[in-house]
Each structure stands twice: as C-alpha cells, then as structure tokens.
C-alpha cells in the first residue's frame, strides 16, 4: 500500500509539473511552427532558376531594413548595395564569391534626405567599371526640375579600395537633371511634371534607355520622351515615342477625366517592340493600370498587384504580395508563380539574351549573422517554366 501511494504521488507530481510547464509555455507563446511562407514559396521557384552569386554585408553596419541590392550580371562581380542611414541613402559595392567579402566602397550619396528609391539599373563594363543608375522620383518633382537620376560607377582597379571606408574613392557619383524642355520647344520646365520613368537596358552594354512620361500641367498634354545614357554619364535625347508611334503627333491628350494630374504618383513602362505604353497609378489604396498604343486611346486593364516590369517579350510581369503574375500585353493573365522571399529586380541583356534577375535576401542579423543577397537569373524566354 505504501508503495502504491508513493507511485501515485510521483505520478501526480510529474503530471502537475508537466501541466505547469506547458501552461507557462502556452502563456508565453514562445514558439512558432518551423515554417516560413516566403522561404517555402521561393523554394518552389529557385530550382528552376540559375544561381549566379552571393554577397554578404559582413563589414557593414546595417541599422535599417531599407536596403536594396542591384546585382551585376557576373558570377564574381557582386553588385551595388543601397542603404538608408540616418535618412540618407548610402551606396556600397559588394564583391561576390566571399561570404565575408570586403566592402569595396561606401560613400554617402550626396542627395537630399528623405529620398525614396524607386528602382535602378546596372550597365557598363561589368568586369572593370560597372555602373549603377538610381531613380528617386520624390526628389525629381520636389526639385521642380525634370528628373534627378543618380549615376554611380565603380572602378574595379582603383588602388584605394583596401583602405578605410572614408577614404575609398573607387565609387564615384554623378548627379544630373534631365531637361525635357530642350526637346519640347516653348515649354517651360516649371510647367512639366514627371509622371513616370523607366530605366531600360539595351542590347549594348555601353548604354541604357531612359523612357519618361511627362505631363505638361497647363494644357494636360502628355509627352513620352526617350533618352540614351552612355557609360560616361552622357545623356542624349533619343526620340519622341508619341511621334515614333503615330508619325504625326508629338504629344497625347487623354479624354477627361484623365487619371494623370500633377499630383499623380505613378509608374511608367514602354514596350519598344509593340510600341505599347503602360502607366500604373496608386489611387485609394490600390493600383490602377492603363495602356495605350497608336491610337492614343487610354484603356484601363485589370492587373493584380504592382507592375514590376514590361518584359522584352512584351509580357507584363506584376508582383502581388509573394507571387509573380504574368500578363499578356493586353492584360490577359497567362500564369502566376511563387516568389516568396525572391524579388524581381530587372531585366538585362546578358550576351544579347534578355534575362530576368531575381534576388533573395537572407537576413540572419537576428541570429548574430549577416545580411546575404543571393542572385538568380532566368532567360526571359523561359519564364513560362515557372508556371506551377
């Protein structure tokens, strides 16, 4: 009997201990499932992509999550890392092939505080002097000018690369303003408002296109002007896209009520092959997308998510939350695919093959680690492989 009582006592104590422990853990709610939706979704797509390179931020203090990475299409050359520190954007260059790789540059971008980075593009000679062009739309219209773009070059062979960060001169910058008025006679700069801008790679590594969508505020005329920028930062007017498309008109006037005004925050895309233009504006908490072609008639198309880019294949690639959605030029959904922790960065010509670049950020800073960026590529022509 005594033995039985002892066993019963032990069992009760064990039970109460377990119950107390589980209750404590429950109240604390310490645990989550071994599951990360973004990583899981990315794992569906990554096996279909080609791995390019990895860079790490081992020697950079990153007190913020406002970071972007622009990979160079090379297995060894890494890419540009933009960081917002104390309200100012700062740019670094990270070499790949070394998880603890050195910082190869790092100067504060000499712009105004509070800039919002929209997007950028890399071009130039990637093995000697890669270039990055960044677009900050909030600065452009606030300054009253046409547009401010920031161009940076990285000198791979600069001897000062191994010195302290403050002394590094390898990363140089060039700020310039596009003066649209030089191409539209009689229009004062103050009457122009940049509705949207697209950075578009060309098949030549030495230059890129800058496609702009400009509103003349006084008469509601819309211009589509394309420029070329070479690796020295020289910008030349390329052509008036409206004139190129219609052959007789230099501007568009959309039938009222036009969705575009001098306060519109929008995005603009131009597809040179089919000469279609797209604009997406953010209204009332959601995106609305429009397109027009030769006739200059604005048509709204139903696209889900945000337009990431209009591809060289003329398809539209949108991003909605953790998924990529591919639409035909007319806005018909073709398919969707999982992105998860992958981001669509841009489309570049790699050996004359249009290629989409994806970047996955791997943030291990909470565990005392670093922030990693892994770059993957996929030829645009093989995009349908991502369809599940």
């Amino acid at each position, binding site marked *: 009997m005594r033995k039985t009582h002892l066993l*019963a006592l032990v069992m009760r104590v064990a039970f109460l201990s377990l119950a107390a422990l589980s209750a404590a853990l429950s109240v604390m709610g310490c645990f989550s499932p*071994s599951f990360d939706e973004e990583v899981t979704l990315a794992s569906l797509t990554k096996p279909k992509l080609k791995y390019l390179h990895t860079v790490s931020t081992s020697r950079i203090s990153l007190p913020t999550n406002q970071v972007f990475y622009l990979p160079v299409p090379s297995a060894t050359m890494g890419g540009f890392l933009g960081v917002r520190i104390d309200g100012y954007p700062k740019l670094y260059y990270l070499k790949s092939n070394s998880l603890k790789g050195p910082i190869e540059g790092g100067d504060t971008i000499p712009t105004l505080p509070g800039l919002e980075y929209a997007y950028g593009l890399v071009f130039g000679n990637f093995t000697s002097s890669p270039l990055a062009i960044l677009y900050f739309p909030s600065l452009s219209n606030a300054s009253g000018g046409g547009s401010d773009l920031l161009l940076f070059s990285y000198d791979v062979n600069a001897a000062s690369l191994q010195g302290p960060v403050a002394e590094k001169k390898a990363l140089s910058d060039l700020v310039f303003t596009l003066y649209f008025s030089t191409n539209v006679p009689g229009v004062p700069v103050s009457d122009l408002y940049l509705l949207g801008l697209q950075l578009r790679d060309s098949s030549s590594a030495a230059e890129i296109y800058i496609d702009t969508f400009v509103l003349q505020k006084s008469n509601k005329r819309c211009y589509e002007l394309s420029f070329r920028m070479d690796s020295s930062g020289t910008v030349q007017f390329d052509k008036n896209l409206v004139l190129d498309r219609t052959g007789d008109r230099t501007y568009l006037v959309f039938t009222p009520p036009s969705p575009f005004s001098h306060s519109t925050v929008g995005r603009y895309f131009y597809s040179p092959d089919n000469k279609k233009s797209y604009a997406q504006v953010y209204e009332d908490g959601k995106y609305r997308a429009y397109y027009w072609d030769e006739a200059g008639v604005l048509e709204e198309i139903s696209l889900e998510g945000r337009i990431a880019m209009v591809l060289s294949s003329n398809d539209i690639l949108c991003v909605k939350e953790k998924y990529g959605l591919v639409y035909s030029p007319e806005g018909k959904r073709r398919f969707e695919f999982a992105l998860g922790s992958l981001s669509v960065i841009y489309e570049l010509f790699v050996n004359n093959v249009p290629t989409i670049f994806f970047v996955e950020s791997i943030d291990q800073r909470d565990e005392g680690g670093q922030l990693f960026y892994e770059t993957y590529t996929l030829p645009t022509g093989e995009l349908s492989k991502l369809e599940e």
Partner: protein
Amino acid sequence: MVVGSMGTHKSWGIPLFLVGLLCALGLFLLPLGRGWAQESGPKEGAPEEPSYPPRKVMVFFRTEGMGSEESAIFYDSLVIYLQGNPYNKRIVEGLPIAGPDSVNDRASVSYRRACDSWIMVHVRKSGEEIEVAYRLYDIPYESYRAEGKFSTEFPGARDRSTFFWKPIRESLRELPALPKDPVFTIRGIPGTKIFGLPGGEKELNAEGKAAFSAPTPATYRFRAEKLGYEPLEEQVLLKEKGGEILLNQKRGTLVNLDLSLWNGQFPSFYLGLFPIPNSLFLKVGLTSFFSGFGPFLVHDSNFEPFVSYPLMTVDFQFGGYLSSPDETVRFYAGVGGFVRVFYSDLRTMLDPLLPFGGYPLIGVEYAPKAGNSVFFEYTPRILYMDAEAMGNVSIGSYLQTAFFKDSWASGTAVGDWFWLELVSFRLGYRVRL
C-alpha cells in the same frame, strides 16, 4: 457354601480377568484389523479424508435398446456398486430415474433431494454389445467433473457386481470435497480477472464464470479487469449460502476527440479510434496554423497576439495506454507521423521544404472523474528536409522561428536531410464519445 463359593470365586477370577483383558485388547485392535483388511483388499484407490459435509450424488439412468426388466437389473447393479464407493460420496437414486433433460433441471431435482451433484449414466444395448456413457456434474461449481465412455460385451451378473461399473465409480473421485463455506459463482466476460475475493486472483473461464467459497455473512470488495472493458470495483454482501454475482461490465471507450493547442498556440483536433477499447488507439488529427496565438516574447518586440500561416499538418498516431482506464492519472505512449500541407495561392501541396516527419509520443492525461480529461502530450519531431529545394539558404536560420532562436529547443538540422524539433507538444481536453 461360603467357602465353596469363596473357592469358586478364586478359581474363576484370573481367567475372567484374562478374558476381559483380551476382549479389551480386541476392541482396541478391532479398528486396526479392519484397516488392515481393507488395505490388503483390491486396489481401488486410496480413500479420501472424510469431508464435511459428504458429497451427495444423484444418479440418473437411461437405457436404450433394453427391456424394462433388463434396465432394472443394470440400474440396481449400478446403484449398489456405486454405493460401495470408498470415496465418501453418498449415492442417491434419481427421481425419476431417467431425470430431466436439461442440466439446470437436473441440478434443481438434485438440490431438492439435498444432493450437490449428479451423474447421468446412459446405457445402450446394441446386439451383444453394451455401450455406457456418463457425465458427472458438480452443481456448486457449475462444471462437469468427469465424463467418459466405455463398451464391452454384455456383462453377466458377476461382472456387473465386480468391475463393469468400475470406471463410473472411479469418476466419483473427481468430485472434490465441499468446503465448509458456501460456494459462489461470479459471471462476466470470459477472461476477466477478479482481484480481492477469498482464494486469490481468479479468471473467468471460457463460459465466463468462476467459483469461489467465502465465509458468510460478510462484505467483500473486489475489482474486475478485462482488456477492452471498464474496470469494475464493487462491494458485495454475501449473506446467503451460495449464490451468483453478475458483473455489469461495460465496454471501454471506442472513440474519443481531442481539442487541443499545439505548443499551446495552434488549434488541433484529433479523432481517436480504439481497436482495443481503452487500450490501443489509432488517431488522425489536424493542426491548423491559419490562426494561432503569436509568439509573445520575440527579439524585435513586434508583438502580435495572433498569427497565421498557410499551413496545416495531418497527423497519424498509434499507441497504447500504460495505465488502467480508471486511474486519475493515465500515461500513454506511441508513435506518430505527419504530413505538412501548404496552401499556396498556386495550389495546395505538400510543404516542399519539410513535407513529412515522425515522432515518438508520450502523454499523460488527468481525469478527476472517470471520463473526459485534460492531457499533455510530448511529441519531439524529426522532419524530412529537402535541402535541395532550399538552394543556398541555410535552413536553420529560417526555420528557427521560436523565441529561443539560437538554442537547440527551437529546432536544429541533423545532417542535410533532417530537421529536429524538440519542443513540440499538445495541451488540451479529451472527450470520450
């Protein structure tokens, strides 16, 4: 005269004394002499110690293929021969001789004549051959003590009185002496074990009964256990001379339902089926991560009271209880497996990274009253990990989403193919259906 008489007295005194001494000696030795005489007789088995009271056997007799006179001869010789048994069994003639047809009726007839057993002898004459079949039934113990058959040529009168019925008389030895205390029968599910009654542990036979004797009147407390049935604890007052206890055994739980929280955060529902009631269980369960309590203690202090993941696990469990069903605290153990279902916008699929896993389980449930219970179940899990799908990402840093990020408790990779989660438990309420 006086002298003569005196002389007469003296002359007969010594002889009379001697005769008296011899007679006294003879009386003293007489029982011994009878004993010797018996032991030197035919070897028919050792006599039993006399018991109290002696067993009384009612003899039923049936014939086939015989005339009434011939039957009477056989019957008389049987009764006379059995009455000469040396086993302290009293033989009582059946009334009617043929006896009733059913076992219970024969017992009833026997009881009315104060007999505690009966023997049915069936003689069949076929030509010159006689076949005899017999069955000896012990009424208090409700069981047959002996039965047999034999056949021979038609026996003569001398054979009938010497050895013909010998197998039947020998069978009387199988009838045990009745205990002084009354005999009780306990009935229930065959195989049930009875604890707490006089005579030690008992098990109900294939007919679902067992007998025991116990001093009366008295109160006894006993426990009946049978796998698959609810244990029974009863207190009985035995005040009659013999009787029957009928066990009201109820089948154990066949189905139960668990309402629980996985890791105290995410709701789960398990349905359990018991191939062996109360003991072995098979379970299927769903754990939904669509809505759960968020991790309250996180590094970056992003407090979220509720979290949601497009994930569900489907669990399968097999196990058994280690404790009796009526224990307040019951332990159980088993093994389980599960698949993880991922609800993406593209389609519903198995989780491409950690599609399935398995675990041992050990649990304890607490039921203050027999019935529904609260339970805690520990299920340390090991999951198959598709490292190739991860690409170049270190899986550990992404899946260690617990508060204790850099400890073994939150999960760790084992090689390239497995992921170990030591913190995995369920806390909930278990309903017996």
